[in-house]
Every structure is written in C-alpha cells, then in structure tokens.
C-alpha cells in the first residue's frame, strides 16, 4: 500500500520544514549558550547524574562487550538488507490489519499524518514522545492544518508549554531546572494550584492532572517507534512514564511515524536492544514501560493503526559506506551525556533535533553537508562517545570523514580557495620534504623576536596574529626554542644522524 512511490535516487531532507538545520553555525550558537551560567550548571549537573547511573548499571553486565558487538552486528546486517526488511515489515503490518504509508521526506510524512487525522474528523491528537515527528516538524504542520497536537511526555510537555525547543534526545528539557519548570507551569497550565512547589513529585502530579483529561478525550494518537520487528509486523515504544502507554491504548486511531532505519529483522534481535537501550539511556536495568503492538484488534486498543515509514534523507546516508553507521543509532543519548562539548553548550547549539555527537554526524548527512557544515567540527575527537555507544558507532571516524567531505565540497564550489585550505596545502608541501621543513622551522624562530622582554624571558607569546589569535584569547603560546630537536641531534649525534 503506497501513498507515494519510493524515491529512485537518494535525496536529502528538504529545507524549510522540520528541525534539522540551525539558523546559526555551531560556534556562533555555542558562544551564546556558553554565556548562560544557569544553563551550564543545569547541564553539568544533569549529565553527570545520568553518566554515573549509566556507568553503574553497565558495569553490572558481565557480557556488555558481547552485547555491544551483537547490537552492532544486527544493525549492520539489517542495513545491508534494509529494502527487504521494510517490505517484510509492510507485508506483516498489513496482514495484521494495519496500514503502511511510505513518506519520502518530511513534507510527505506531514501531509499523510494530517490527512489521516482529518479523515477521523478529530481536530486534536495526543502525542507520544518521538524524535521522528520532531525531526519533520509535525506539530507545526498539524497546526497549519487546524489540528492541535498535545505532547504527553513530561519533558516534551515542558518544552511545548514554554514554546521552547528540545535540547536532548532523551531528556528534552534537560536545560531547565525545577524552579524554572515550576514558574512555567504556573504560567502555562490553566487552573493550576498557585501554591505549587518545585518538588519533582508535585510538578509531576500537576502535569498528570493536566494530561489526564487529554488522554480520556483524545480520539487520535501519534507516536514514533523505537523498533519495528519485521517478522511479525510488531511496533515497539520504550518509555518511562506510562503516558506513552495511555496514548497507544486509549484512542481509536494510532498513527506511528518511524524512520526506516528502526526496523529489526526478528524478536531475537529485539531482545539485544531491549538490554542495551535502557542501561545506556536512562541508566536503568529495564525501562518501566515497553509497549508492543501488532496491527489492529477488535475490542482492544486502537481500531485503526497506521505506520508511516519515513526516509527524509536516510537513503542517502545509507549510500555512504563510512557515514551509514550513523543509521545504527538507537537514540539512547549516552554519547550526549559523556560529550565534553555537549555538556558545556547544550543541545540547542547544534540547531537540530539530534544534538551532541550523534547529531553532529547524523544531521549533516540527512540535510547534505552544505547545510550543517560546522557540525562535524563541533568535537575534539576525544572518543568518549565511541566508548559508550551501545552499537559501537565510530563517531570520531565519521566526524573526520564528514570534515573531508566538507573540505571537498567547498573546494569544488569555490573559485578562490579558503585561507585555511591554502595554509593546509602549504604546510603539506613543506612537510613532505624534510629540507623544506627544516627551513620552515628555522624561520618560525623569528617569532622569538616579537613580544615583550618579560614574556620572552618566560618563553611564551601572549598574542598571535590572524586566525591563531583565537588561541591567545585565553592561552599563552610557547615561544620557539633556540634550537630544534633535529638541530640538537645533528650537533650531538651527527654520526647516528647520518645513518639515514
């Protein structure tokens, strides 16, 4: 059953819809975030807490390394047969009474969902927390179609009530502390008790009262999916609050929007991920609510069940032999919590619904590197993300791969090379010949002549010219010594030195 034909050539996620592109470059957006001490405090505290929880529950599992290997192997094998798995999934969902829709991009998916909601006659939907629907900007598209969408995940509710943007995959309101949330609730929730405190229990209870009416009234729910099992056509949502379970069971119509990379071949495969995901994401041994549904059933749960399979650039990611591993991500967000860059800038700096290290490799690939060119550089390549990834995505290597892509694209597009590319080419030319390199080292010694006498005596430079000025804003630079190592060697060990 097809609404739109599958695309024949890889396409990127379209601009002007959804949330994959920031208005500013990463360094610009990061600068603003770094100037907010409350944000840094909230993030530092929250990520440290989750990091420690994760480390503890991962350490309990004796075969964690084997589990990661299995997760990686299953994902790689699935991506190699993705077309077959998706067709099998479509067949099984259809056989179980569900309806499958293929959406080549965000616009297409938004149209399908809006049409399906309109066909029910309802003007509102309740939503299960979902990355895919954030990615495509579904709430905005529904609003334009006259349909109100209500987020029911507590953190997504906080983000929605504040007219804010999510800043973390798992904890979208991680940038807010409880005092800020209390003030927001007092402002945005009708008929709220004005004596509300910032006790987390009180805040959760207030949200619960607010949401309960929505659940009971809603005729249509929209969800994402963490996994889809191809062999039986079963969809899976993993969550902590039970609000997702309410959405998945109470309304008459359930519409699930899922990225095509979420399919797994069999239940045996699912077993691996249901161990990897909760320990990596919330630091729990098992998540509180795991909902699984297969098609529609008379007298139990939704009577109409739809699955929208979303491409939105994923096929073009799959075409990249190095970059495709980014599709293996199970959205646990462990890489965000350990990332020293994310911990300090927060998620908004990445300009995409996918922040942190995984976002830095996923967003540019979904949109095309031209639209997120600064993201692959938003990392020191420290490798902490790779270490914790439950499916062993080598994020540092993909970042380096995407940087090379960016350099090549810029080279191909410009008549005049960038100053950086000139400097890099000159350095490479110099360093492929040791005599040229020795001469360059000697001339770098001219830097010994500049600067104040006191700094010279301390062997440092306090301000550098050009792009290197960014170094000396907060860091002294070393002053080149009177003698390089190779000069010392030639003088002291000339007999050895001449062996080669």
């Amino acid at each position: 059953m097809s609404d739109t034909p599958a695309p024949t050539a890889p396409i990127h996620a379209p601009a002007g819809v959804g949330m994959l592109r920031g208005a500013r470059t990463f360094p610009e957006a990061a600068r603003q975030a770094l100037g907010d001490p409350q944000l840094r405090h909230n993030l530092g505290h929250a990520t440290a807490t989750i990091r420690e929880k994760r480390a503890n529950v991962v350490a309990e599992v004796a075969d964690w390394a084997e589990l990661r290997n299995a997760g990686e192997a299953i994902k790689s094998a699935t991506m190699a047969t993705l077309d077959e798995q998706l067709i099998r999934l479509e067949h099984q969902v259809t056989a179980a009474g569900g309806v499958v829709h293929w959406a080549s991009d965000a616009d297409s998916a938004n149209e399908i969902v809006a049409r399906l909601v309109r066909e029910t006659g309802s003007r509102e939907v309740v939503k299960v927390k979902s990355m895919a629907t954030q990615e495509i900007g579904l709430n905005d598209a529904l609003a334009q179609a006259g349909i109100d969408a209500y987020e029911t995940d507590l953190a997504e509710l906080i983000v929605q009530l504040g007219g804010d943007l999510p800043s973390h995959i798992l904890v979208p309101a991680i940038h807010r502390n409880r005092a800020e949330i209390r003030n927001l609730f007092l402002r945005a929730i009708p008929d709220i008790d004005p004596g509300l405190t910032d006790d987390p229990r009180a805040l959760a209870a207030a949200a619960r009262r607010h949401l309960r009416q929505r659940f009971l009234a809603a005729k249509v729910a929209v969800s994402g999916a963490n996994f889809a099992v191809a062999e039986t056509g079963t969809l899976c949502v993993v969550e902590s609050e039970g609000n997702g379970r309410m959405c998945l069971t109470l309304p008459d119509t359930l519409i699930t929007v899922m990225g095509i990379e979420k399919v797994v071949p069999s239940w045996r495969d699912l077993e691996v991920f249901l161990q990897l995901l909760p320990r990596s994401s919330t630091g729990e041994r098992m998540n509180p609510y795991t909902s699984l549904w297969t098609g529609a059933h008379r007298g139990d749960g939704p009577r109409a069940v739809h699955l929208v399979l979303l491409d939105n650039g994923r096929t073009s990611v799959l075409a990249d032999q190095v970059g495709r591993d980014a599709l293996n991500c199970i959205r646990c967000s462990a890489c965000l919590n350990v990332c020293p860059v994310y911990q300090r800038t927060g998620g908004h700096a990445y300009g995409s619904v996918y922040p942190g290290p995984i976002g830095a490799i996923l967003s540019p690939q979904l949109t095309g590197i031209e639209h997120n060119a600064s993201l692959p550089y938003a990392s020191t390549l420290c490798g902490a993300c790779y270490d914790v990834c439950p499916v062993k995505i080598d994020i540092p290597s993909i970042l380096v791969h995407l940087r090379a892509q960016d350099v090549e694209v810029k080279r191909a597009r410009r008549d005049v090379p960038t100053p950086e590319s000139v400097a890099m080419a000159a350095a490479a030319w110099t360093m492929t010949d040791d005599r040229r390199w020795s001469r360059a080292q000697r001339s770098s010694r001219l830097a010994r002549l500049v600067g104040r006498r006191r700094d010279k005596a301390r062997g440092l430079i306090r301000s550098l010219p050009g792009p290197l000025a960014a170094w000396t804003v907060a860091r002294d630079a070393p002053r080149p010594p009177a003698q390089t190592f190779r000069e010392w060697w030639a003088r002291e060990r000339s007999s050895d030195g001449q062996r080669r």
Partner: protein
Amino acid sequence: MPRRPRVALFVTCLVDTLFPDVGKATVAVLERLGCEVVFPVKQTCCGQAHINTGYHRDAVGLVRKFVTTFEDFDAIVAPSGSCIGSIRHQHSMIAEKAGDGGLAARARAVGTRAFELSEYLVDQLGVTDVGAAYPHTVAYHPTCHSLRALGVGERPLALLRSVRGLQLIELPNGDQCCGFGGTFAVKNADTSVAMLTDKMTDVLSTGAEVCAASDSSCLMHIGGGLSRLQAGVRTVHLAEILAATEDAAP
C-alpha cells in the same frame, strides 16, 4: 636481552619545533634502558592535523613520507599518543581513499610497529621502573587519544609510581578532554576555553606542583592556560619525568 633493541624515534613535528627537551628526554630514557636510538632525519609530520581537519588529499604525501622514512625499522617510538593513534588508525584509510592500496598495506604494517612511549617501555621492554627520580607532586592527565584510541590504560601511571620521590595525586575528571582537539581550539575557541577552564580547575584542586601528560599538544593547551593565569603549576611531559634522575634532576 639478547641484543640491543634498535628504536627509531619519531619525535613529532610539534616536539621537534617547539618542545625539543621532550625529544631529548625520550632519547635519554630509551638509551638508559639499553636501546640504540636512531633519529631518521627525513622525518617530518604524521599528518594528523591535516587528516583531522579534513584535508585528506593533502595528507597523502605526508603518509607516504612517514611510511617511506620508517618502514625499515622494527620499532618506532613517539612521545605522543595522538600521533601514534593517527599512524595506527588513520594512515591506511588516507592511502585507501587516495586509491593507493599498496601504500595502505605498507602503512598498516608500519602501524603495527609504532608505539607510544609508555606502550614501548611497558609492553616491549617489559619495564615499569626506569630508574628515574623526580621529587615532586604530580597530577597526571591521561589524554584522550592515549586513553581511548590506544588504550594505554595504567601504563603511564605504573611508570610514574615507580619514580623515586614522585608523589602521584589523582586528577579529578581526568578522563575528560582538555579542550584542545587540534584546530578545534581555534574553530571552536569558546567551547575549547570552557573545557580548558574546567580542566585547570581540576588540576589546581589537586595542589600538585606539576601537571604531566604524554602528549605535548595537550600540555601546550593546558600549560598555555595555566601560564596565562600565572597559576604556578608547571606542565611536564611524561618523558621528561622519566628522564630525570637523582644525578640530573631538571
């Protein structure tokens, strides 16, 4: 030992140009342990900065230069975890991308014989006590590439614990990056400085006289920050500590 181990020193372009004492110290430690140290003068740079900044075509010549210079040696030692990481994990990729399968195979072979200093001392020479003396308090920053790309683990700490007079103080959040990241320090200077600030806070919290590491690039970053603050904490390379003896304390 049946025969003096012959070691080719890859001093790295940074140490060669800006921190020659680290190179001299590496030579001193290896020679004290009975190695014959050779310095192939045709060496220049491993190309890590080019590779990590995305200039992969420009890096091919540097990879070829490195492989040609070092492939005749049984053991190559560098006082840098990140340069060895690049040699071991990136050189063959750069050659493959350039369509030079022959160079890639040679690069892979050279990579298996290239060691970061602490790896060479502990694994190849089987030594943790190198006969050093260094009467100072030291906080050790493990550096990301040594820690994760190479997995050197406890090796540098084992070496430091055997140094006479040295008091090792644990660095809180040691496994966190200092914020250098090559061109990251300039392209994302604000984030880099924020990370550096936290690293310096942790270093200062130890009260140690010396912050040590096994990569001069990270030390240049941390040291540059501490020097700007006039914090009074010195940054010293692991090789310099291991080279220090009771006769010749630095």
